[in-house]
């Protein structure tokens, strides 16, 4: 009988440059949760999400907001006594949820990341005004007004681009990325 892949193995396979399943070596010490600046805002702390992955609680993990609160500060990663790259795990969980198109509904993160990736596909460089469309409309009125005020001040100080930047070798650039992933789906 072939061994079935556990959810933990499935996620561990998405971690670059790791051998075996590092998640199984977690001792639940909680250093990650104590270090994480976002932990107070997460549905499940990083320590808990690792325990849930190892306990095969796939649905709860996929529907958690935890990894969308990761700011990529890598503080957990450098402190983990078992050297688990926890920030990389958060990336893996984001990818898993993006690929399966399954994530908690009220999150801005997935749309923002997708818009960012498409913007770079389109021009090779990032452009704030296009990125803003991915989140501005999900803001409440007070936040929308605050954001508009900040943007206006930045514009007056000459800190917002009027025209999008574009690389010169765009055609080759897009063919290059097309060798990694079929661009059709992202255009």
């Amino acid at each position, binding site marked *: 009988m072939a061994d079935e892949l556990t959810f933990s193995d499935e996620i561990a396979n998405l971690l670059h440059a790791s051998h075996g399943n590092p998640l199984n070596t977690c001792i639940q010490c909680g250093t990650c949760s104590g270090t994480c600046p976002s932990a107070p805002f997460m549905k499940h702390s990083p320590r808990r999400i690792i325990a849930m992955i190892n306990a095969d609680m796939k649905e709860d993990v996929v529907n958690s907001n935890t990894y969308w609160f990761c700011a990529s500060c890598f503080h957990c990663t*450098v402190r983990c006594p078992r050297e688990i790259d926890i*920030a990389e795990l958060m990336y893996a969980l984001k990818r898993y949820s*993006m690929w399966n198109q399954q994530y908690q509904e009220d999150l801005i993160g997935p749309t923002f990341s*997708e818009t960012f990736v498409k913007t770079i596909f389109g021009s090779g460089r990032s452009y704030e005004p296009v990125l803003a469309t991915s989140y501005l409309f999900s803001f409440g009125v007070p936040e929308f007004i605050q954001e508009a005020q*900040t943007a206006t001040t930045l514009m007056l100080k000459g800190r917002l681009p009027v025209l999008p930047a574009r690389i010169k070798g765009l055609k080759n650039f897009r*063919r*290059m*990325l097309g060798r*990694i992933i079929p661009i059709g789906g992202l255009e």
Partner: protein
Amino acid sequence: MKKYAYFPGCSLEKMALSYHVSTMETTSRLGVELQELEDWNCCGATAYFHIDELLAYTLSARNLALAEKENLDLVAPCAACYKNSYFTNEYLKEDPDLAEHINFALEEDNLKFSGNISVHHLIEIFVNDIGFEEIKSKVTNPLEGLKVAAYYGCQILRPKKEHLTVEEPVFFEELMKSIGATPIDFAERLRCCSAALIITNRHAALSMVRNILHNAISSGADIIATACPMCQVNLECYQKQVNQEFGTDYSIPVLYFTQLVGLALGISPKQLRIGSELVSTTPALSFAKRGSPNP
């Protein structure tokens, strides 16, 4: 004169133009030539890792291959550009299969990654290549009495790079001392500015920014110094939102370390684009206006 391939990154084109301008002004006076990488592309920030790792490595590998073509080591002033370029370089060097895969994509752009250059953050050039003694010897306007919160943030140090200590770094404070300023003891110096969470998770992000501002101000800082465009924008441009959200009254200027070094070298505030901030630097820098050595 030591020469590098300079990868400014998207933020430095406009949002952090003052970082770019002050980088060019200071490095040229300190004997380092930065040659802008021809037709560089976005590093992919964190977003590309949310979709596909190989795409993220390909973006950074293109910039690395462009620098290799010039036979120059790469320098990035942005912490995210630096982290992505640094680790792509390391991973591709140690994993020939990965390098082969990425090189297959680079062929479309007539480029090839060979792994024969190194990647540095801009602040490392000041600390290691130029050195504190050389900087000290060129200071004409020491920033005496200016209490600086030297804010490292995250990705310059983390994840761990072989040549840097992650928990007790001192190089930023030492750099501030070399220009005559007084670095303050500042516990939040290695904590996260919240990065893109300022857009995607606003409340959590403002709370993280508040902690850093609070700690810097209560530790007696006149000004925060940064080495990353994202940290600068989050800590400075969102102070108003933090004050509205938490009923606080924070007002502390945030400048790039290159702007402070520039002032100490006697470069005028205007040439360093000081004045494009949302929080005025005037009270903190009033002494620097004299533009001459302290009596």
